C-alpha cells in the first residue's frame, strides 16, 4: 500500500511538471494549430524571472516578505513570458498562420535567439526591456480618451514608447547598481533557493512528501482550474473556442479574431512562464533548461489528442506514472519473483534515460491503435 502510494505520488509529481509545461503548449497548439518550439525558452524566461524576483526580494526593503516571493514570482513570470509571447505572435507567427512547418522553423530560430540573449545580455537589461515593452503596450490603452482627441494617434504612440523606453533604461540601471549579480552577463546556471517553508518534507503514513513537489502540484492544479474556468465560462474564453471551431464564421459574427489570436498566444506563453517557476524550484536554471522539457510536452499533447484539455491532463499523468514505474524499477519491487528474462529486461530499462526510451516506444505503439491520441477531435474530415 505504502509502495503504491509512494509510486503514485512520484508519478503525479513528474506528471504535474509535465502537465504545467504542456498546458500552455496544448492551448497554443490545440486551439491555434501553432507549433511553438520556443515554448521551452518561454519557460526558461519564467525561470529566470523567478530568479530575478527572488534577488529583488532579498533587497533590504522587501526582505520581510521574502517568504512570499514565490507567489509574486508566478505573477511576474506569467507577465514576462506572456509579453514576450505576444511580441512573438505580433512580429512573426501572425505572418505564418496556416503553415505549421514554417512556424516550427521560425520559432526554433526565436528559441536560439532567446537562449543566446540570456547568455550574452545581463539580466538587468533584459528586465528593463521587458518593463519597457509592458509599459509601451499598456500605456496607450490606459490613457484617457481626451488625449486622443487633442493629438494625433501617431504622436501619442511615439510618446508612449519614448516614456516606456526611458522607464526601461531606468529600471535596468537601478537594478544593475542595486544587485551586482544582475549587471553582468553570464552563461552559467543560476540557482533559485526555495523559501524556508518550502524546504523539507511532509510526513503522512510513514511517507515523506517533499514540499516543493506538493507546491508544484498545487500550482498545476490552480493553473488547470484557472484555464478550464477561463475557456468554459469567461466571455473571451468562449470567443477563443468559437474561433477554434470556425474562424471565418466567428469573424462574420463580429469576434475580433486578431485579438483572440493575441490573447490565446499570450495566455499560452504566460502559462509557460508559470511552468518556468515550477521548473526553477526543481533544479538550477540555465539557458538550456527549456529544451529538456519541450519534447516531453509535445509527446503529452500528441498522446492526449490535440485541442483537448482532459486528454492533456490524463496523458501527462500517464506518462509521469509510467516514467516513474519503469525508471525506478518499481515493477521489480511490486513483483519480486518475476521470471529472470523479464526481470533483466526490467532492470535494463530502470534508469531515467532508458525509461524515456521505453515510454516513447509505448507511445508509438499506442499511436498505432489510436493515431489521433486519447481523445481525438470528432468530425467528418478527410484530413485530421
Amino acid at each position, binding site marked *: 500500500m505504502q509502495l503504491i502510494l509512494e509510486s503514485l505520488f512520484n508519478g503525479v509529481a513528474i506528471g504535474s511538471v509535465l502537465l504545467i509545461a504542456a498546458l500552455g503548449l496544448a492551448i497554443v497548439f490545440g486551439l491555434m494549430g501553432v507549433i511553438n518550439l520556443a515554448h521551452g525558452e518561454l519557460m526558461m524566461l519564467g525561470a529566470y524571472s523567478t530568479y530575478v524576483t527572488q534577488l529583488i526580494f532579498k533587497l533590504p526593503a522587501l526582505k520581510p516578505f521574502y517568504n512570499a516571493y514565490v507567489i509574486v514570482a508566478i505573477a511576474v513570470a506569467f507577465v514576462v513570458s506572456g509579453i514576450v509571447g505576444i511580441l512573438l505572435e505580433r512580429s512573426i507567427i501572425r505572418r505564418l498562420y496556416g503553415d505549421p512547418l514554417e512556424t516550427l522553423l521560425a520559432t526554433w530560430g*526565436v528559441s536560439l535567439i532567446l537562449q543566446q540573449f540570456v547568455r550574452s545580455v545581463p539580466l538587468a537589461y533584459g528586465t528593463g526591456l521587458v518593463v519597457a515593452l509592458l509599459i509601451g503596450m499598456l500605456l496607450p490603452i490606459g490613457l484617457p480618451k481626451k488625449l486622443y482627441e487633442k493629438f494625433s494617434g501617431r504622436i501619442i504612440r511615439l510618446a508612449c514608447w519614448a516614456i516606456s523606453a526611458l522607464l526601461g533604461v531606468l529600471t535596468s540601471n537601478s537594478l544593475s547598481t542595486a544587485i551586482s549579480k544582475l549587471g553582468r552577463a553570464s552563461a552559467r546556471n543560476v540557482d533559485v533557493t526555495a523559501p524556508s517553508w518550502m524546504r523539507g518534507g511532509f510526513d503522512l503514513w510513514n511517507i515523506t512528501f517533499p514540499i516543493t513537489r506538493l507546491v508544484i502540484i498545487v500550482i498545476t492544479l490552480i493553473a488547470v482550474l484557472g484555464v478550464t474556468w477561463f475557456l468554459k465560462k469567461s466571455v473571451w474564453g468562449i470567443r477563443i473556442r468559437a474561433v477554434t471551431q470556425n474562424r471565418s464564421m466567428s469573424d462574420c459574427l463580429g469576434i475580433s479574431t486578431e485579438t483572440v489570436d493575441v490573447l490565446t498566444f499570450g495566455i499560452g506563453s504566460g502559462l509557460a512562464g508559470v511552468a518556468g517557476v515550477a521548473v526553477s524550484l526543481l533544479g538550477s536554471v540555465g539557458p538550456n533548461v527549456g529544451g529538456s522539457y519541450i519534447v516531453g510536452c509535445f509527446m503529452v499533447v500528441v498522446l492526449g489528442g490535440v485541442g483537448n484539455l482532459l486528454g492533456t491532463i490524463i496523458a501527462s499523468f500517464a506518462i509521469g506514472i509510467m516514467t516513474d514505474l519503469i525508471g525506478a524499477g518499481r515493477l521489480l519491487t511490486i513483483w519480486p519473483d518475476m521470471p529472470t528474462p523479464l526481470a533483466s529486461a526490467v532492470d535494463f530499462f530502470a534508469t531515467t534515460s532508458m525509461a524515456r*526510451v521505453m515510454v*516513447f516506444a509505448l507511445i508509438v505503439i499506442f499511436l*498505432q491503435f489510436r493515431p489521433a491520441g486519447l481523445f481525438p477531435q470528432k468530425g467528418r474530415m*478527410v484530413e485530421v
Partner: protein
Amino acid sequence: MKNLPKSSRWFLLLIWITIIAAIIAAPALLPVFRLNLLGRYLSLAIVALGVDLIWGYAGLLSLGQGIFFTLGGYCAAMYLQLNSSSDLPNGIPEFFALYGVKELPFFWEPFKSPIFTLIAIWLIPALVAGTLGFLVFRNRIKGVYFSILTQAALLVFFNFFNGQQKLINGTNGLKTDVTQLFGQMVGSDSMQRWFFWLTAIIVVIAWFFARWVVRDRFGNVLIGIRDDEPRVRFTGYNPTLFKTIVFGIAGGLAGISGALYTVQSGIVSPQFMTVPFSIEMVIWVAVGGRGTLLGAILGAVAINYAKSLVSEALPASWMFIQGGLFILVVTALPEGVLGWLQSDRPRNLLTRLGVSRPVSTYPSLEAESKQEVKK
C-alpha cells in the same frame, strides 16, 4: 534541369563548374586543417540532400535525421575500432576494459568484415528509417505530428546511446582518429586528403542518385504528396509506400554522410543526435533552396563554412545569426537562395534598377522560327 529555361540552365552549369573547380583546387590551396573542415561540410551536404528529398520534394519535415547520421557514423567507427584492436588484450576495443566487459557484444561481431560494414553504413540507417517511417505513415500521421515524432525519436535514440557504456561506450562515443585503416592512422594528414577526395566523389554520386530519384514518375508522385496527399491517394497511389521509400533513402544518405563525417572529425558520439544539430540540417536546405538538390549541397557547405568562420571571430554571435537565418528564410525567402535566383525576382530587381528585360516568346515559337531560318 530539362524543363528549365535556357538562361537558368547556363546558370546551373556555371555553378557546377565553379563547384568542381573549387573541389579540385581545394587540396592544393587549403592547409590540411581547412581541407578537413571542407571535407566534413561536404559530407554534411549528403545528409542535406536526403533532407531535401523528404522535405523539399515529399513535404516531410523530419527533425530526426541525426539518428540515421549517427547510426552510419557508429557503423564506420565500430569497424575501425575492431580493425585496430586485434593486438589489444581480449582482442576487443580498449574502452571495454573500463567497464569490465570481457567479451565483444554480439552485434559488434559482423562489423569485423569490411564488406558488411560498407553495406551496413547505408542499409542499417535506411532500414531503421523505413521501419520508423512506415509505422508513422501507416497511420496517416503527417505534417507537424510527423516532425514532433521524429524529434521525440531522436531524443530516445540519444538517451539510448548515451546510457549504454557497456555496449558502445555511452556518452564518450567511439574515437576513429587513432584507429588504423590500410596500415595508416585514420587521423593522419594523407588519410584525411584521401577522405576529402572520397567525400567529394560521393557527394557528386549522391547528387546524381537524388536527381535520378526525383526525375521521373517517382519524383512526380512525391511532389504530388507534398502538394495534395489525399488527391494522390484518390488517384490510386499509395502514399505510405512512397513516403516510406523516400524516407528510407534519406536515412541511407544520412548514414553515408555520418560515416564520412565521423572519419573526418575523428569521433562519433551521441552528441550528433542532439536536437539542434538535426534542425540545423533543415536550415541548410531551407537557405540553399528546398526542392533544388544543388541548393541543399550549397546551403550545407556555405552555412557550415560561415559558421566556422563566424564562431572563430565572434563566438557569441553565431546563435543570433543562426536564429535570424531561420526567421529570415521562413518569412522573407521561403524558396531559398537558389530558388530565388531561379525565380523571376532577380530579373525584376534588375528591371527596377534600369536594366531592360529581354523580351521572350514561347520557347516552341522560338524553336520554330530558328528552323525556318535554317530552311
